[in-house]
């Protein structure tokens, strides 16, 4: 469960990222965070995986207060939260397989386990046949699938997708959306940060709308209203 208690984030000199946000996300939920640029969507996502620390308030994930998380505990948190970005963040000199395996290798997972997990993840994201291709040999949608695969290797309880379809055409965006839904069906909580109207409307899941760093609407089976 994700719990934001009166969370604010300020940037110097006087920029408000988030303003007294209260939010509860139950395990297994699929929520979309929407809003225009600069409304605090990405700030909220960054607070979730401790890339940023809140200026005020408390953030709890699965009962774990990560508000003032120690630097040494951040890696443990990030192994429980998969993150996907608009620009994929893949290593261009590594193959699809190596990009996914990389996330396990740097966490000290034994090679035998890596060889077990990676093919399974490749199968989930539908890239079994492209394991030995390099990112530049893949379409945007496929690259995002690799990024999602990499985010899944630690079997995270939460998947944060920050504008995952921002660089993709409609068809690829729909594919990615289907993949996220499939991951959600496996029990993973999905937090989708987007301003893609079509995606949000297709989902028919909970939609949280941010404006000026505040939550202005929180609707079950919502639509993109802005």
């Amino acid at each position, binding site marked *: 469960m994700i719990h934001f208690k009166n969370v604010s984030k300020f940037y110097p000199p006087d920029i408000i990222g988030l303003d007294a946000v209260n939010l509860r996300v139950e395990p297994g939920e699929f929520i979309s965070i929407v809003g225009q640029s600069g409304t605090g969507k990405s700030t909220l996502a960054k607070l979730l*995986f401790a890339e940023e620390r809140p200026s005020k308030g408390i953030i709890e994930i699965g009962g774990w207060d990560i508000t003032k998380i120690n*630097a*040494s505990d*951040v*890696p*443990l*948190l*990030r*192994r429980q939260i998969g*993150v996907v970005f608009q620009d994929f*963040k*893949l*290593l261009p000199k590594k193959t699809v397989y190596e990009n996914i395996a*990389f*996330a396990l*290798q*740097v*966490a*000290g*997972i*034994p*090679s035998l386990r890596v060889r077990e997990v990676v093919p399974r993840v490749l199968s989930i994201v539908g890239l079994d046949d492209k394991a030995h291709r390099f990112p530049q040999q893949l379409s945007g949608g496929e690259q995002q699938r690799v990024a999602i695969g*990499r*985010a899944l*290797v*630690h079997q995270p309880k939460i998947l944060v997708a920050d504008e995952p379809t921002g660089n993709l055409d409609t068809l690829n965006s729909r594919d990615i959306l289907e993949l996220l839904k499939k991951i959600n069906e496996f029990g993973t909580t999905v937090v989708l940060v987007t301003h893609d109207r079509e995606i949000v409307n297709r989902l028919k899941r909970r939609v949280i709308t941010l404006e000026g760093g505040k939550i202005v609407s929180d609707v079950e089976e919502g639509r993109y209203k802005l």
Partner: protein
Amino acid sequence: MLTSTYRIIKFAFQNFWRNIWLSVITVSMLVLTLLTVNILLVLNRVTDQAISFVENRIEVSVYFNENAPQVKVNDALTHLRSLPEVKDVQEIPADEALAAFKTRHASDPAILSSLDELGKNPFGPTLIIKAHSAKDFDAIIAALDNPRFRDAIRQKDFSDYQSIVSKIRQTTDEIRMGGIILSGIFFLIALLIIFNTVRVAIFIHREEIGIMRLVGASSSFIRMPFLVETIILSVLSILIVVAIVYPTLAFIEPKFNQYFGSNTTGLVSYFEQNGLLIFGSQFLALLVVTMGSTALAMRKHLKV
């Protein structure tokens, strides 16, 4: 743990190979620095040998008057032998001095006939004094000024060995100082290069580092490859230095020995016997300094 260690070492070697020219430059600077330190060591050894070579040949000859009483000569001899600065005193009686003189000038009838004309032995007893070191001669010459036998002494003959030794010392001290300054400069450059190597490596790998952080790599896992790379650079540097120093010493030692005669410099055997200590301490010092520089570069440029 073992898996992580293996991967850290693997990443460190990858860093090394991917920036091979940077690695070559860094290793070259470290090698230059270490070579300068070793040249200083060799210089020290050779200087000591040169000084002992000169000092072994230093002696003062004290010529007594021809009519000097033997009791005064004996008094001087006993007094000199009691001095801690004196290594050895040898007495040459007047007869022996005359015989030696005649032998030396056997081929010069003019000198021999002049001696005959004198009709008596013009030589007095002589004392040959050897000191422990050149700087002891001042004390010995002062001791010869003792009023108990000062008047019986005709002449004190000593070459200015002290100035020779101090000239050797002065020259080698200057070279040594130059070497220390040079190795200091090389060391500083090496440190800056190490700092830059790590900075560049961090810059090159910034994408990879970002992803590592994102997927939950620990801070130590991200940092360790840079430190291990520094160890690789240091090990490589010391191995190259060892590979250069021994053959070079084997090559130059006979030339030094030729100059010093029987007084061998023993450079190769010195480095063989103390190699572990010499290169081990150099490696440790190098490691401490280069890792310090790496840590500084990471602190400044690697935010994890």
